[in-house]
C-alpha cells in the first residue's frame, strides 16, 4: 500500500509542473494591471464565461443524457446507427466547427444564398437569421461538439446498472419522462456530472472558437493579458485564480458523490422497449439533430473545402508525416496517461476498500485531474519554463545542446499526458464507483494479492471504461494545439499544427485537408469502441465480478497451466 502511494505520488508530480513554473511569474506582480482588469475586463469576462458555461452545460446534459437514455432503453428507427454516430462529434476540434459554421451560415454562404434564391430575394439583410458570431452561436457550436462526453458517460451508466430498478419502475406503471427523471437521472448522476465536467472544462479552456465568434471569456482574457497587454505575470495570475475556482467546483461536485452510493447490486443492461410511431419518430429526430449539427454539416463543409483544394493542388506532400506524427504522439501519450491513471485509480480504490478507509489515494487522484483545468496555452508556457529549468538542473554546465527536454518529442508527450490525465482518471474513478467493494474483499479473503487483484479482476472489469477513456484521450491529444505548437521540435508538424498554420493567417479553409484527416483518423477508434461494447460485456454480467474474485484467489484455478 505504501509503495502504491509513493508510485501514485510520483505519477502526479509532473501535473504540478506547469503550476509550479508559473508561480514565480504570478508572484512577481503585474504592476497596476489588476485595478484595470477588475474594473474593465474581468467582470464582463466572468459574466460571459458563466453564461457560456451555463448554456453549454444545459445543452450537453440535455442532448448527451437524453440521447444516451433513448438508445439505452428504447427501440426506434436508427437506434443502432445513432449508438455509434452520437460519438462522432468527438473527432472535431471546436475551433474547426466554429470556422465551418460561420462559413455555412454566413449571409454570403451556401444556406442563406440558397434561401434567398428560393425566395427570390436579393438583399442579404432581408432574412434576419440569428448571428452565429454571438454568445448563443458559440453555445450552439460548442454544445453540439462537446455533448458526446456526457453521452458516453451516461450511456455506460445506463447500460451497466439498474436494469432491476427500471423493471421495477416500469411494473409500477411509471413510463417515459417519469422513469427518466426519477430513476434514470439519479442513477447516472455521477457519470453525467463527470462527463459534463469534462465538457465544461473544455469549454472554459477554449480560445479558438470563442475568440473567433466574438465571445470574451476569462480564458480569452488570459491570452489577451499575456499577448496584447504583454503581461505573462498578469496572465499567470488570472489563470491560477481560474484554477483555484475549478478546483473548488470539482471538490464541491464530489461532496455528494459518496463512495459506494452508486454501486450496482446486479449490473445488467436494461431491456429495450419498442416505441410507437409518433414517439419513435421523435426519438429518431432527437438523436439525429445533434449528429447533424455536431458532425455531418461541419464535416460536409470540410469535405467540400478539402475537395476544392485537392482538385486544385493535390494532397499536401507532407500529409503522411503529419498523420504519422499526430498518431505517434497521441498514441504514446495515451499509453502514458492510461498507465498513470490506472495506478492512481487503483491506489484510490485500495484506500477506499481498506479496513480503515483512507483519503490519500483519492486526494492524489483528484490532484492529477487539475492539469485539465489550466488553459492550454498557459499550461504550455508553464511547461516550457519547467522543462527549461529541468534541462538546466540536469546539465548545469550546458554540455547538451540542443537541450534534452525542451523542444523534444518527449516534452510534447509529457504535456499531453499532464493535460489530459483527468480523462482516464475520472473515467476509471467512475467505473470503480460502480464496482462493488465486496469484490475486493472476497478476492482478498480468497488469498489474492494486490497484483493479482488488479490484473485478474479489476482490469477485465474496467476494460469498457478504460477503452472509452483511451478513445477520448487519443482524440483530445490529436486535437491538442497550444502545447504542441510551443513545445515540439524543429521540422515536426502534426495535423493540428498544419491546420493551425493556415488558420493563423486567416485562410482556415486551406487547412481543411488536415482538419478532415484529423476527423478521419478519429473515426476508426470511435467505430472500434462502438463495436467493442459487444465484445466485452464483463461489466454487464451479474455476479461475474464476484465469481472472478473467488477464482482469482485460488492458485491454479483461474487459468490452466501450460505444461
Amino acid at each position, binding site marked *: 500500500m505504501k509503495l502504491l502511494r509513493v508510485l501514485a505520488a510520483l505519477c502526479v508530480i509532473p501535473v504540478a509542473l506547469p503550476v509550479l513554473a508559473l508561480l514565480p511569474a504570478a508572484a512577481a506582480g503585474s504592476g497596476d494591471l489588476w485595478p*484595470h482588469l477588475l474594473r*474593465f*475586463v474581468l467582470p*464582463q469576462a466572468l459574466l460571459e464565461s458563466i453564461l457560456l458555461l451555463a448554456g453549454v452545460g444545459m445543452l450537453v446534459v440535455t442532448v448527451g443524457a437524453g440521447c444516451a437514455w433513448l438508445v439505452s432503453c428504447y427501440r426506434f428507427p436508427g437506434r443502432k446507427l445513432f449508438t455509434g454516430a452520437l460519438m462522432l462529434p468527438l473527432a472535431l476540434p471546436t475551433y474547426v466547427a466554429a470556422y465551418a459554421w*460561420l462559413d455555412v451560415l*454566413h*449571409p*454570403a454562404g451556401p444556406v442563406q444564398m440558397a434561401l434567398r434564391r428560393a425566395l427570390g430575394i436579393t438583399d*442579404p*439583410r432581408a432574412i434576419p437569421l440569428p448571428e452565429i*458570431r*454571438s454568445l448563443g452561436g458559440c453555445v450552439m457550436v460548442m454544445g453540439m461538439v462537446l455533448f458526446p462526453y456526457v453521452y458516453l458517460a451516461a450511456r455506460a451508466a445506463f447500460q451497466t446498472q439498474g436494469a432491476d430498478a427500471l423493471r421495477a419502475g416500469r411494473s409500477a406503471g411509471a413510463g417515459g419522462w417519469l422513469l427518466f427523471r426519477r430513476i434514470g437521472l439519479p442513477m447516472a448522476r455521477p457519470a453525467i456530472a463527470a462527463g459534463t465536467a469534462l465538457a465544461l472544462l473544455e469549454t472554459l479552456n477554449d480560445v479558438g472558437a470563442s*475568440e*473567433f*465568434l*466574438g465571445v*470574451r471569456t476569462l480564458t480569452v482574457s488570459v491570452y*489577451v493579458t499575456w*499577448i*496584447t497587454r*504583454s503581461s*505573462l505575470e498578469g496572465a499567470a495570475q488570472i489563470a491560477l485564480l481560474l484554477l483555484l475556482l475549478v478546483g473548488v467546483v470539482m471538490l464541491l461536485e464530489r461532496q455528494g458523490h459518496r463512495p459506494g452510493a452508486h454501486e450496482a447490486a446486479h449490473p445488467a443492461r436494461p431491456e429495450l422497449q419498442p416505441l410507437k410511431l409518433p414517439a419513435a419518430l421523435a426519438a429518431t429526430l432527437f438523436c439525429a439533430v445533434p449528429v447533424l449539427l455536431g458532425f455531418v454539416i461541419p464535416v460536409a463543409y470540410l469535405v467540400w473545402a478539402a475537395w*476544392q483544394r485537392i482538385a*486544385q493542388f493535390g494532397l499536401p506532400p507532407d500529409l503522411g508525416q503529419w498523420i504519422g506524427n499526430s498518431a505517434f504522439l497521441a498514441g504514446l501519450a495515451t499509453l502514458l496517461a492510461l498507465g498513470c491513471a490506472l495506478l492512481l485509480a487503483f491506489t484510490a480504490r485500495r484506500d477506499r476498500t481498506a479496513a480503515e478507509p483512507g483519503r490519500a489515494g483519492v486526494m492524489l487522484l483528484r490532484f492529477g485531474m487539475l492539469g485539465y483545468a489550466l488553459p492550454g*496555452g498557459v499550461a504550455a*508556457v508553464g511547461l*516550457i*519554463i519547467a522543462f*527549461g*529549468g529541468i534541462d*538546466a538542473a540536469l*546539465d548545469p554546465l*550546458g554540455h*547538451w*545542446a*540542443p*537541450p*534534452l*527536454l*525542451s*523542444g*523534444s*518529442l*518527449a516534452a510534447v*508527450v509529457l504535456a499531453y499526458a499532464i493535460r489530459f490525465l483527468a480523462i482516464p482518471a475520472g473515467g476509471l474513478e467512475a467505473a470503480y464507483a460502480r464496482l462493488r467493494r465486496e469484490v475486493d474483499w472476497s478476492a482478498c479473503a480468497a488469498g489474492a494479492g494486490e497484483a493479482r487483484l488488479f490484473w485478474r479482476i479489476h482490469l477485465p472489469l474496467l476494460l469498457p471504461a478504460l477503452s472509452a477513456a483511451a478513445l477520448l484521450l487519443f482524440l483530445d491529444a490529436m486535437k491538442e494545439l497550444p502545447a504542441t*505548437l*510551443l513545445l*515540439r*521540435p*524543429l*521540422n515536426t*508538424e502534426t495535423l493540428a499544427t498544419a491546420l*493551425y*498554420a*493556415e488558420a493563423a*493567417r*486567416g*485562410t482556415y*479553409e*486551406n487547412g481543411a485537408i488536415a482538419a478532415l484527416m484529423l476527423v478521419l483518423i478519429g473515426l476508426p477508434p470511435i467505430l472500434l469502441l462502438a463495436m467493442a461494447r459487444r465484445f466485452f460485456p464483463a461489466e454487464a454480467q451479474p455476479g461475474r465480478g464476484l465469481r472472478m474474485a473467488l477464482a482469482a484467489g485460488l492458485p491454479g484455478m483461474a487459468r490452466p497451466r501450460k505444461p
Partner: protein
Amino acid sequence: MFLRPFCAVLGGLSLLLGAQLAQAAEVNLYTTREPALVKPLLDRFTEQTGTVVNTVFVQGGLAERLAAEGARSPADVAMVVDVGNLMELVDRNLSQPVESAALSAAVPAGLRAPDGRWFALSTRARAIYASRERISEADAARLTYEDLADPRFKGRVCIRSGQHPYNTALFSFLLVKHGESWLRDYLTALKGNLARRASGGDREVARDILAGLCDVGVANTYYVGLMLSGRGGDEQRRWGQAIRTVLPASGTMVNLSGAVVARHAPNRAEAVKLLEFLVSPEAQQLYAEANFEYPVRPDAALHPIVAGFGTLAVGDVPLPEIAAQRVRASRIVDEVGFDQ
C-alpha cells in the same frame, strides 16, 4: 539477452529526447510566420547555399521558449510578425547585434535597429476596406481612420477584436498622433458605429461588406491580394471584388514582419547569411509575390495587385514608438469596452 530490450529503450529515448545528430551546415529558425509563406524562400536559400534550414512554427510564446531554453537554445534566427512582438525579443535581450553591410544597404534606416538587433523583412499596411457598391470612388479615396468614427458610418463599420495585435498597433499609432483622450472618444464613437461585434479575422470584413452587413472596415492589405489573386477560389475573389482598398493619404499605419539573430545562436554565421538572403532582391520579390506584402528594399517591385492600391503614404510615427505605446492603447480598448 538482457541488453537488447535495454538498447531498444535507449534508442527510443534518444529519438524522443532532444539529442540530434549534427549535420553539415544548418541554421535553425523559430518563426511565427506561417510555414506556407516562408517555405519557398527557405527552399531557395538552401538551393543557393547548401545550408539546411530547420524550422518550427510557433505562435504565442516564441519569446518564452527562447528565454526558457536560454544558452542551450538551438535557435539561430527568430522571425515574427508585428512590431510589438519583434521589440519584445529585443527588450528581453533575446537577440544580438549584427553588423552587415548587405543588411544595412538593403533595409532603410527606419526599418532596422541602428545596432542591428532587429531587421524588418517586409511591411504591410492597415488599410480601410470600402464597399464598391455603396461608397463612391471619390468618397472612398478621401477616407481616413479618423472618419470611421464619424456619425455618417453609424451601423456600417466592421472590424476584428480591438485587442488583436493588428488593431492595438493601429490604435497605438493614433494614440501617438492624437493623444489619450482623443483615442478614448474615438474608440467610443467607433464602437458605436460597429455593424456587428468586433470579431472574426481581417477577411471577414471583406466578406461582410459583400454580404451587405457593413460598408467600411479596417484590415490588412495582403488579404486583398490573397482574395483577388483567386488562390482561395472564385468565392473569395468575389469578396475581394466587393471592396476598394484605401490607403489613407493623411498617413497610413504600416506594420512589419521582421527577424533577429538569436542571442545564443549556435550557427551565427549562417544566421546572418539567412537574413542577408531574405533582404536580397530575389527573396524580396518572392516575399512580395507569396503574400502580397510590401518589400523593405526600396528597389524591389510591388506585386501588380498591391501596386493597384495606390501610393502608400507611410504615417510618420516611428515603429518602435508604436510598439512602446501598444499596451497603453490596449488598456484604452478595455476602458471603452470596445470588444463587448
